[in-house]
């Protein structure tokens, strides 16, 4: 079965990012397919590579990144939500005339249409948020 997962909260502030990550792992472990994971609202903060939690804490962004690499996942950050919150890839930072980018490997920035397409293409859409 094909899943689309929506993540609406950033890591650390709300458990939903952890829940979504564990759910995604369980979906894959059971042999299902993840069509797309879409990050919206503060969920876009799951895609920064500049988080430095204490050494004994989890690094959620890196866990997403590694999961994406291992399973060739499509992790999409909403561009409108990302621009508001300062999550930038190289092209977008350049386009906006900014001096830095911060997206972590395995994520890409795209439009909200990707969420709707995810809802259409997947057999199940599951939302995690606050």
């Amino acid at each position, binding site marked *: 079965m094909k*899943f689309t997962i929506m993540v*609406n909260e950033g890591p650390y502030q709300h458990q*939903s990012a952890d*829940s979504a990550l564990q759910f995604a792992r*369980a979906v894959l472990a059971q042999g*299902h397919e993840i069509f797309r994971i879409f990050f919206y609202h503060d969920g876009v903060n799951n895609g920064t590579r500049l988080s430095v939690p204490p050494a004994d804490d989890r690094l959620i962004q890196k866990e997403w990144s590694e999961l994406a690499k291992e399973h060739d996942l499509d992790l999409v950050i909403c561009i409108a939500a990302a621009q508001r919150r300062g999550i930038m890839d190289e092209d977008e930072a350049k386009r906006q005339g900014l001096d830095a980018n911060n997206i972590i490997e395995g994520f890409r920035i795209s439009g909200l249409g990707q969420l709707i397409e995810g809802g259409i293409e997947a057999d199940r859409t*599951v*939302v995690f948020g606050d």
Partner: protein
Amino acid sequence: MAMLHIVNKSPFEKVAFRSCLNHAKAGDSILMIEDATVGAIDGTSFSEKLKAALADKSVYVLGGDLAARGLSEDRMIDGIKAVDYAGFVDLTVENETTQSWL
């Protein structure tokens, strides 16, 4: 079409859980995750409301979230089933649609 209702708010703090119970239909399933898991406990100001839902709906709790809040499964209302993340995935497969009560 059966629906899986996913609730993540404590019924003692927010109205989301009550709202979920007010809209879920007979034959639907309700899964408590995150803070909502505290609602699974018997003998609370909320437990009668959840027991009423059990008459025609299946109710589940994500065991890891309950344990994280210092609550053991033997304190749960009779009829509520504990699942792990694999069970969570199965519930999304068994029900045609899902709705998260954020």
